[in-house]
């Protein structure tokens, strides 16, 4: 469904992505682990096209999209959420979801009718609001709701495009353990045929939702396998789990 081949990127002298080759099957749920600065977000940026790789290819649903701009890849069914909330702050929760849903249903460009009041858009907004548990806040302004709700909305906006592949960059970053557990349910309730690639620091959550785990360190894939193998991996313990167990 989503594949990278020998993806490489450097900023100046630092190699942030080194020869990364990944392959996600349809419906696969993969978690990316790695210490701070390992190049996880930079990898996402290259997957969606916000940053051009120096070398390598990105293949989405069998199509080479390396040369395609962000919006082109989005139209093919690739969607992402951001590590740092990237919402429409001055608008309501409903309008945030509505903007995304009007793209999904092809109303983003008409000059004849209000895209946000269309039946199909409203249905999608409702469904997604339920999926990410923001139903009670629909009419509240984004700047008025709590950080946790904004975090859920961040995923909701990405979901409202009804993607084939969803990339989530640390959906639980900055939220407490209770909310993290909430995200577990949220992820479990997502449709099974949706391909998920999740960057996650919360190890319990990571092991609970992952079909497969990839570990990045200094821009390099140092582990790629099942959660069981990941737990046993000596390498993983050395570079990452050590820090986690201390925490």
């Amino acid at each position, binding site marked *: 469904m989503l594949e990278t081949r020998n993806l490489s990127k450097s900023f100046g002298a630092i190699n942030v992505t080194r020869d990364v080759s990944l392959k996600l099957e349809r419906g696969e749920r993969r978690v990316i682990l790695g210490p701070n600065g390992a190049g996880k977000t930079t990898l996402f940026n290259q997957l*969606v096209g*916000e940053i051009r790789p120096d070398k390598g290819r990105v293949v989405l649903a069998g199509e080479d999209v390396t040369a395609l*701009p*962000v*919006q082109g890849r*989005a*139209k093919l069914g690739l*969607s*992402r959420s951001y590590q740092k909330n*990237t*919402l*429409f*702050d*001055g*608008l*309501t929760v409903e*309008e945030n979801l*509505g*903007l*995304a849903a*009007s*793209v999904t249903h092809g*109303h*983003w*460009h*008409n*000059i*004849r*009718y*209000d*895209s*946000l009041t269309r039946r199909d858009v409203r249905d999608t907004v409702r469904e997604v609001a339920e999926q990410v548990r923001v139903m*009670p*806040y629909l*009419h*509240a*302004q984004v700047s*008025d*709701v*709590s*950080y*946790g*709700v904004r975090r859920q909305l961040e995923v909701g*906006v*990405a979901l409202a*495009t009804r993607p084939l592949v969803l990339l989530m960059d640390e959906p639980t970053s*900055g*939220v*407490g353990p*209770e*909310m993290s557990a909430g995200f577990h349910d949220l992820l479990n309730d997502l449709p099974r045929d949706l391909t998920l690639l999740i960057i996650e620091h919360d190890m319990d959550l990571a092991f609970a939702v992952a079909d497969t785990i990839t570990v990045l360190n200094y821009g390099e894939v140092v582990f790629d396998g099942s959660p069981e193998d990941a737990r046993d991996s000596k390498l993983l313990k050395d570079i990452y789990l050590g820090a986690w167990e201390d925490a």
Partner: protein
Amino acid sequence: MFRHTSLRFWTLGLIAALAIWRALTAEYFGVETVTEIAILAILVIALDMVAGFGGMVSLCHGALMGAGAYAYAMLTVKAGLAPPMAFAGAVAVTGAASWLIGAVCGRSHGIYFIMATLAFGQMAYSLVFEQPIFGGDDGISGVPRIDLTIIGLDLNDGRTFAFVSLAVLGAVYWFATHVLQAGLGRSLTGIMHNEQRMRALGVNVWRIKADMFGLSGMIAAAAGALAAQHVMFVSPGLLNWTVSGEALVVVILGGLGTIIGPVIGAIVFVLLKHEVSAHTDYWHLVVGLILIAVVMSRANGIFGWLEQRLSRLARPVPARDVIANQVRKDLAAKGSLEDA
């Protein structure tokens, strides 16, 4: 995001009533003033569409209005086209040109966008000034008004012309608010709030910007074609960048991103100009002081100030503040989600 509010409707009704009353009862000079305000209001609505809802602060809208005026004058006087055809032609040609300007400038932001639009405006100005076909410094005179006698309207009558200008203003207000509430306008507002996210959602950002800029240019051209008919001649001064600057002042004075605010701004600006310039040559000084006062007051122009004063009327339906408060109470009751 554009929202209808009761305050907006009340203001609109009040302005319409006053305008019609003035156009019906005023003497010659008063009627001319109504027309002048209507034309300026059309221009500033066009500017507010892109500046207030897309963050595209344009310094070429004066030139776009000038282009519309010149296109109308050229098509009637030089090409001998029937005035209604010339009007449509002027709007179409200017619209196409502004679409291109939007497509090119839309790739830049902030001060760079402003400078790029200024450059386009200056190019148009020097083109008109230096090409003999445009009549140079003298401009083009003998510009005819549209003949509406079939429907019983004689546009050569000042009062009738004022009413037709007001009708065009009404149509433009409706069109602008309609487009801003349609998918295109919603997307443009989304881009203003977060361009990166809109792109990630699959929106062709430059296309939205170019299309809205094109529509805005068409409206500016309509203002220009009206102005050309009003004074029955055109001169290069119409394309001067100071016209664009003045339009921006009017938008900010009235309330950026409110559509109705700039209309109020146009009324205040023109009335002030006439009142103050009757007493002193330094009327720009007075307008400048008022603008500084408005900007320092931290309200969004005159309409923004009204919205603050009459906040109960300024609430869109359903009242989102009420719900937001309810939500806050719910959150406090649950106590599970705290702000980071």
